[in-house]
């Protein structure tokens, strides 16, 4: 087949797949949260409540998409687009199977880190453009939290880079054939997971959008499809961090022969998505200063220690 056509098909396939997963996450999150809270989630609308996704999407589409007159219009409209673009771009470098990826950048990991840094812009711009004190507070807290946790997100991955010798995600997966990197790099895995949860501002790090505190934080002025884009962008971020954790620490598509590689990838990503939802079900939200102190005073030194020890071991042996 024409290689350009193949690439376009793969791109469209991954795009549609990512959007489908984000839409299904609406249903999955509600059902799993309910499962862990001794109740049923939506179970009326279709078989097992699956048509609830359609009902939610119809609701979001038909809501009044109002731009406040006191808001900064171009920035206000652009902010949700920024997060969708950065998260979807990051999906381009992830290897779903040995031959199923959009592009194999030799700096794929760096690209992912750069895109997540750009994603912080959308929160800041949304909080600023809303021209509303609570959105501003939410945006400020979001930017401080995301910048803080991004620092050691990158540092915690340096151990993986040292062990595999490359920034390319395909090479990292290939280097895990003998042993998944979660075993030698357990500390790096824990730090990356915590930093990833903070990047997608999910519970317990969801101060920016704390539902019961500052109403909806940086997206309180958003309604209709723009809010829908933030919402879907958050679920896409969850999927992205799960996929990255699986690729970097749990062997990507590697697994015994009885399932095809992409099935192993999907299965492992699914487990991590469920872990994200379990975190939401089980943990309370820390206070903002406790959150920042935890980041700067505990996780950053641990990430640096991880690099030190890994570097020493790699150099020595």
């Amino acid at each position: 087949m024409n290689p350009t056509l193949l690439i376009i098909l793969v791109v469209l396939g991954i795009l549609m797949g990512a959007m489908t997963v984000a839409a299904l996450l609406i249903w999955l999150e509600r059902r799993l949260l309910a499962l862990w809270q001794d109740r049923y989630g939506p179970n009326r609308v279709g078989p097992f409540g699956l048509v609830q996704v359609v009902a939610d999407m119809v609701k979001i589409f038909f809501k009044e998409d109002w731009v406040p007159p006191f808001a900064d219009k171009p920035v206000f409209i652009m902010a949700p687009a920024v997060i969708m673009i950065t998260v979807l771009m990051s999906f381009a470098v992830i290897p779903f199977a040995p031959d199923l990826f959009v592009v194999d950048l030799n700096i794929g990991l760096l690209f992912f880190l750069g895109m997540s840094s750009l994603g912080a812009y959308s929160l800041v711009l949304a909080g600023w453009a809303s021209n509303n004190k609570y959105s501003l507070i939410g945006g400020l807290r979001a930017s401080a939290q995301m910048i803080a946790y991004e620092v050691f997100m990158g540092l915690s991955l340096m151990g993986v880079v040292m062990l595999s010798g490359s920034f390319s995600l395909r090479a990292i997966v290939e280097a895990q054939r003998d042993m998944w990197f979660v075993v030698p790099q357990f500390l790096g895995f824990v730090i990356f997971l915590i930093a990833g949860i903070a990047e997608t501002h999910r519970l317990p790090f969801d101060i920016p959008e704390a539902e019961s505190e500052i109403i909806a934080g940086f997206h309180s002025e958003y309604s209709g499809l723009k809010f829908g884009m933030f919402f879907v962008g958050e679920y896409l971020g969850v999927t992205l961090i799960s996929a990255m954790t699986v690729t970097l620490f749990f062997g990507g598509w590697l697994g015994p022969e009885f399932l095809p590689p992409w099935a192993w990838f999907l299965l492992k990503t699914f487990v991590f998505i469920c872990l994200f939802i379990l975190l939401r079900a089980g943990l309370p939200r820390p206070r903002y200063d406790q959150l920042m102190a935890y980041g700067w005073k505990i996780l950053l030194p641990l990430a640096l220690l991880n690099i030190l020890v890994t570097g020493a071991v790699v150099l020595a042996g």
Partner: protein
Amino acid sequence: MISILRSLWLPFLHMFRKRVTIQYPDEKMVLPARWRGRIVLTRDPDGQERCVACYLCSAACPVDCIALQATEDEHGRRYPEFFRINFSRCIFCGYCEDACPTYSIQLIPDYEMAEYDRQNLVYEKEHLLVDGTGKHHDYNFYRIAGLSIGGKDKGKAEREDPPVDVKALMP
């Protein structure tokens, strides 16, 4: 850190427990007989309505949702000419049931009373009167009270002594 992992493990275990939701309307909750639901007017074991239109229930009602008018039939037995309860006001407290001397007005465990039009929530006597005796099966007020009405003279009630002629005790 251990406490965080414990906070995750315990909700995870909830996955293996039964869910506490009652799937209304497929399953309904089992209600005790004293549950204060819809108000009904009950009848005697003999089939006549128990209400004597004493106005005690409307006086006891905290939100004044009961309206009635007393009248007498040809045998001297009091009954309500109309009896109206406005269920959009009723708070289902049960004070009317406690105040009633004849066990006429009772609250039964029925709550499915939703209406589309607010006027349909005002129940008249024909909507409230039921054919049964409600929660108290044997009580007939007029058999016990000392009032003389058509069919029962003074002294003929249960456990009532016959009337004494006070003028006959004169020395």
